[in-house]
């Protein structure tokens, strides 16, 4: 090709202005039609770590987002029919140990229990778990089974990891029937790819 004149008529400023207008219009249309989506990977099965995925999932669904939660490893326990979740300050050194009730001199006070005692004292985990549950109840925090039901009602997709159920020899009958599907990473990742928010808990 030699130095030939451009083929297009040279009203480039008009053309640019038209394109910018049209582009903004199309982008606005696209944004308005877009339904936000979120995927969460839930890997923990303790009472404390059960909260973030269910709170975020139910709230996002309330905001009109499309939500999928992939439950894997210990997180899969959050989909069991019978939830008996525990929490302990062992391994959670920042967890406050406060008495949820009792006389004023003890209520709300931090219990100075040394880690070595926590590890040795039989029933310590049950005590810590029931203290946490009582505190949550006092403060109007929802129970996990309640949040889970709200997620189901709001059509949050509960996706279970097939590998985990095989790994720990669980029976599928131990889990709630509302589980959307049993899949592996290759089925979940494409959904995460098209979501706007991806969280790992």
């Amino acid at each position, binding site marked *: 090709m030699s130095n030939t004149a451009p083929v297009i008529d040279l009203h480039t400023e008009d053309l640019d202005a038209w394109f910018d207008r049209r582009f903004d219009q199309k982008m606005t249309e696209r944004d308005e039609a877009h339904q936000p989506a979120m995927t969460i990977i839930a890997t923990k099965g303790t009472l404390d770590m059960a909260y973030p995925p269910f709170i975020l999932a139910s709230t996002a669904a309330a905001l009109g987002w499309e939500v999928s939660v992939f439950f894997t490893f210990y997180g899969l326990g959050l989909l069991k029919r019978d939830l008996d979740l525990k929490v302990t300050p062992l391994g959670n050194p920042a967890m406050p140990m406060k008495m949820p009730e009792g006389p004023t001199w003890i209520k709300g006070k931090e219990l100075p229990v040394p880690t070595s005692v926590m590890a040795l004292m039989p029933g310590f985990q049950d005590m810590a778990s029931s203290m946490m549950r009582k505190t949550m109840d006092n403060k109007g925090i*929802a129970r996990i089974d309640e949040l889970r039901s709200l997620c189901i009602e709001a059509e949050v997709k509960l996706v279970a990891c097939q590998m985990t159920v095989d790994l720990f020899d669980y029976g599928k009958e131990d889990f709630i029937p509302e589980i959307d599907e049993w899949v592996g990473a290759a089925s979940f990742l494409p959904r995460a790819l098209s979501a706007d928010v991806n969280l790992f808990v």
Partner: protein
Amino acid sequence: MTANAHTLDARGLNCPLPILRTRKAIAGLDSGEVLEVAATDPGSVKDIDSFCRQTGHKLLSSDESGGSYLFRIRKA
């Protein structure tokens, strides 16, 4: 609370329950109807506002008196 208005008592509930109950209550209304929500969770002030922005419902008013909050929301 105004007489005959749709009301929701979310007092004593903590995050995210006020939002979840609000969503459910609004789902049962017709477009243009108003829901009054009473809450005590201080986080609900910003959360209800954010909920309305995201969902397109109109937050008509947001008032506080004596540690209690009252929101009026018109369904989109």
